[in-house]
């Protein structure tokens, strides 16, 4: 089974980010960048499926400027076999990303496509579902467990009210949730080996996909901060204030 994993380069989750003072975007020009944590989980799952002999090849793809090759090399160091860099200077919306990935799915014909459930920058939670729609494939979102059977894949999904296990006909698109696995750290020998693995660069124009944005961002501002309140001296004081002042009890 061939697996395609789509990953995104995002601001490292450990970095605190703030909007620019003119409201035109986020102040991230010099921020440390990483693979989106949910995408890292997708890579890890694909690599484990290969180690178990279920997957034969793991192809990793990312869309963006030359800089995304850093994250693609990291993915190769984690165990992916080859990488595709879709080269563009533009920032794409989820629908456009899904259209680009759809073209690649048609070319690569993977049995399974793994993606993170959302990126921690845009927080859209859309791309996987859109890709499944465009391909006409089954979808398993918020996956916390994946079990490959002969001609289908069973996916346990984390829902608001509990867990749901789906049997998906292959090919399928799966988006990963936090508890699917604990991603490994790359080892030095694997980082060295990753440099030799194939990384193909495809100009986005070669895919003939309309990636024009549909939305216009008018402003990006910090949310209203909560006012810091008061310290209470005792539990009795707390209960009293909640009753008399806040009137919530």
């Amino acid at each position, binding site marked *: 089974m061939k697996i395609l994993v789509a990953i995104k380069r995002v601001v490292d989750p450990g970095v*605190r980010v703030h909007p620019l003072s003119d409201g035109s975007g986020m102040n991230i020009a010099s921020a440390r960048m990483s693979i989106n944590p949910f995408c890292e989980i997708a890579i890890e799952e694909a690599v484990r499926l290969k180690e178990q002999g279920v997957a034969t090849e793991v192809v990793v793809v990312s869309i963006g400027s030359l800089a995304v090759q850093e994250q693609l090399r990291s993915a190769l160091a984690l165990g992916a076999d080859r990488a595709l860099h879709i080269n563009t200077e533009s920032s794409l919306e989820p*629908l456009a990303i899904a259209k680009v990935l759809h073209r690649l799915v048609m070319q690569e014909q993977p049995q399974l496509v793994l993606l993170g459930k959302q990126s921690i*920058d845009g927080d859209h939670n859309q791309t996987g579902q859109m890709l499944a*729609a465009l391909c006409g494939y089954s979808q398993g979102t918020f996956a916390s467990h994946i079990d490959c059977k002969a001609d289908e894949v069973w996916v346990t999904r984390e829902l608001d009210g509990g867990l749901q296990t789906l049997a998906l006909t292959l090919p399928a698109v799966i988006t990963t949730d936090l508890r699917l696995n604990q991603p490994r750290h790359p080892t030095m020998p694997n980082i060295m080996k990753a440099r030799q693995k194939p990384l193909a660069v495809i100009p986005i124009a070669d895919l003939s996909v309309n990636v024009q944005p549909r939305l216009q961002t008018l402003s990006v501002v910090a*949310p209203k*901060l909560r006012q810091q309140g008061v310290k209470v001296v005792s539990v009795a004081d707390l*209960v009293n204030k*909640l009753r008399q002042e806040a009137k919530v009890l």
Partner: protein
Amino acid sequence: MNLMNSTALVVIEQDTSGFSPINLKVMGAIAQLREFAALEVDLLVVGKDCTAIAEAAARIPGIRQVLLADGEGGEHQLPEALAPWLADLAHDYRYLLVGATTFGKNLLPRVAALMDIQPITDVVVIESANVFKRPIYAGSALASVMTDQPIKLLSIRASAFTALEAGDVVAPITIIIPPKSQRLSRVVSQQQVAAERPELTAARVVVSGGRGMQSGENFHLLYQLADKLGAAVGASRAAVDAGFVANDMQVGQTGKMVAPELYIAVGLSGAVQHIAGMRDSRVVVAINKDPDAPIFQVADYGLVADLFTAVPELIELL
């Protein structure tokens, strides 16, 4: 001011109790949207054996009708069956709304791609008929987004809107042809959590524990407190990752978004992504023995104390 005449379709969410409370929050967003457009609103109930839910939906005020699509193909509301059918139906409307829950997040983008529409998910403010605010970067910023697409597909974050109350007027129910059955996916099993307490996103009071709880057993303290207050119990990601409690209790950007009247954070440091999930609560109480815990910066009332003495005392005094 003359408001533009427009139409909206709301996909009604079903849960174990039947009619999910999220639907009344989505109607709260519809009420805001009505300040900018004269809306005819239809509610869509799709599923198997869901007539009772359609009857509950019909009691929502201010709607034109409930569309009821009852049949095998709608069972479990799988997006593979619903999306192509809903994409056809939605072409007759200018807005398609759904709650930003795991149900809505699973369905809406699949519909959107088939309609060639870029949706706007997790809407927290309706600024005009075509400008919407949504949080980005785990709630570190709010983006104001405009769309000129002919149909606006929106998912609504429940914690940001006031629930509309069901009334006495009953709207007509129109039976429509349900989606066809499909073979791409099927449900093998479904595990619902036992609902002894109110659902997190709908509760008036939420009590949450963090890593400071030290173990899953110690959460019994919070359950006792919650039972006194009629509260739901949540947890930080740290507490979930440590295995203290189940992951569906997680409050935060990657878990559930809550905005109760009263939020009590116990032994919880207050990581950015946790605060993103509860910052809209009306009154926040923090109990933590570390006076420098960031949770105190967002708390209306902070108590620096050992939770293992403070919580039993609190239970006693309530």
